[in-house]
């Protein structure tokens, strides 16, 4: 039972990271109408920046802050240099172009930081565990991730729904030309949106960095998971991304933790050990297939033009 609670919390924590990635992706897709495969590269860049700045400043928080800024700037620069020509192009063009960018970033990171990868260590006060329920201890840092991400989600909601910038962003999504004709600098607005998505991805990367190794290609597998989240949640819907991210996070984590044992109950031990990991990694894709059968537009389809 204790184990189950712990795994549920782990699932929520994974879901939160997926949400940060998926929110950026879906924002960029919904507003800029751009498929961005290089989104995982920004996740990776965020982690590398955080590890570098934290080592330079000797402070975890300063490292995170500087890295956020750096990812935002990198994202905006990327948009101006390479992404802008891809707007309004065929999805295939966008996929190919951003695929090229992804290869570029992987190699660039290898050139700058070397192939070995980095580590980002937590400050000692974050290493403790908290008693979340009587008798249930949970690592403080993972709770911090959940809370920080929830805060970001709320801020994002407030930004998009309650501010002038957010209003312009929503207006730009429904009619780009009209907003431009009314005197809004739509190019700058798009750059800002892309930078925001980049910062969200980078933030996810740096949150994950202390739990895993900072390495080349770290953003790719989680990017595909984020795609699954978006397909389940419905493209262009931040609310859908939030719900789907938590569902996917919990199902994936719980599946990996319990399915192999469950299978071993029914078949022989050795067969269970080998089939377990394979089957549990299929779980979320099965969920995705089921969603596609019953609701091809996703659980929370965004109203499209």
């Amino acid at each position: 039972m204790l184990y189950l609670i712990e795994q549920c919390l782990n699932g929520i924590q994974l879901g939160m990271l997926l949400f940060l990635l998926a929110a950026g992706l879906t924002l960029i897709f919904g507003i800029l109408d751009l498929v961005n495969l290089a989104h995982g590269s920004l996740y990776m860049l965020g982690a590398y920046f955080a590890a570098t700045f934290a080592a330079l400043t000797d402070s975890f928080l300063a490292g995170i802050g500087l890295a956020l800024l750096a990812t935002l700037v990198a994202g905006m620069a990327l948009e101006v240099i390479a992404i802008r020509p891809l707007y309004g192009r065929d999805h295939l063009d966008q996929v190919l172009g951003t695929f090229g960018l992804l290869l570029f970033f992987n190699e660039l990171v290898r050139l700058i930081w070397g192939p070995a990868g980095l580590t980002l260590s937590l400050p000692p006060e974050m290493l403790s565990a908290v008693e979340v329920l009587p008798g249930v201890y949970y690592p403080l840092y993972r709770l911090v991730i959940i809370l920080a991400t929830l805060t970001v989600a709320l801020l994002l909601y407030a930004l998009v729904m309650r501010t002038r910038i957010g209003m312009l962003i929503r207006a730009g999504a429904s009619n780009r030309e009209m907003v431009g004709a009314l005197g809004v600098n739509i190019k700058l607005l798009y750059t800002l949106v892309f930078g925001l998505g980049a910062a969200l991805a980078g933030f996810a990367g740096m949150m994950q960095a202390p739990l895993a190794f900072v390495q080349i290609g770290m953003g790719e597998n989680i990017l595909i998971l984020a795609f699954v989240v978006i397909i389940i949640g419905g493209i262009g819907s931040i609310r859908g991304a939030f719900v789907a991210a938590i569902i996917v996070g919990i199902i994936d984590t719980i599946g990996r933790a319990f399915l192999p044992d469950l299978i071993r109950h029914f078949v022989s031990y050795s067969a269970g050990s080998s089939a377990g990991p394979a089957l549990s990694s299929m779980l979320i894709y099965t969920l995705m297939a089921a969603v596609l059968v019953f609701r091809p537009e996703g659980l929370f389809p965004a109203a499209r033009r």
Partner: protein
Amino acid sequence: MSGRLSPRNAFVAGVITILALVPVYAEATGNTFMVSLFTRIVILAIAAVSLNLIMGFGGMVSFGHAVYLGIGGYAVGILAKEGIDSGLLQWPLALAASALFALAVGALSLRTRGVYFIMITLAFAQMVYYVAIGLDRYGGDDGMTIYKRSQFGGLIDLSNKMAFYYLCLALLLATIYIVWRLVHSRFGMVIQGARSNERRMRAIGFPTYRYKLLCFVFAGMLCGLAGALLANHTDFISPALMHWTRSGDLIVMAVLGGMGTVFGPVIGAVALLVLEELLSGITEYWQIILGPLFLLVVLFARGGIDGLLAGVRRG
């Protein structure tokens, strides 16, 4: 397409001639690596041609096409490991397994379109990738060596590099011929019609879903053949066979060569793999050049190499 000796047709004939003469050249110069490289090119060209059937002609952008390389390869590898090394059993099973998976993925993903389709094909391919990692008995993450290539009795010996190369080349030419016939048949017209205006095709009375699904399955099956060949070529299978960047490479081949024609992807496969080989000879960080190059092709040479050749003819 005219039957005249246009620059494009001359170029195609030239590429085929070069492909046919590679082993002769390699034999003369003693450069055996060349045969190995070109066997790989020819096999991946089969995969790229099959992808182009659904992507270029059917408008179905699959970002998970490499999964059939994996399924075809694993079918051969798993059977070999279990002691069945007859190619007459292995290869049909590789094709059947690929077709079956394509049927399942196609039936689900063709319910959607556009960017959904891209993401879904990618996600299902990734699922198989993880399943392959979980297959401890067949090497898991590390992959597994195949100790005996597919056996075809006394018919052909696949361990002979020359014989294997020419078999792959013959299969490539057969694939091109079949796809060409298909594209120019009534079936192919329906598929292309559905790409340009699906609603209209349905209004005329064509069940486009079924046509597209059949096309998708056929392309998956052809790529499964390439997978079976690739496993025999490297004597090794691993999840890397179907890593998602491999699917990206296949798309690049099709686009680089030119999606408008059946032969384009072959040019793309030759161009991409030779370019990779050259660049990796120049610098260790060759992808830093290759990546932006993809972006430039997309932005400025949308028709691919074939488009440039067509431009020559017009100009």
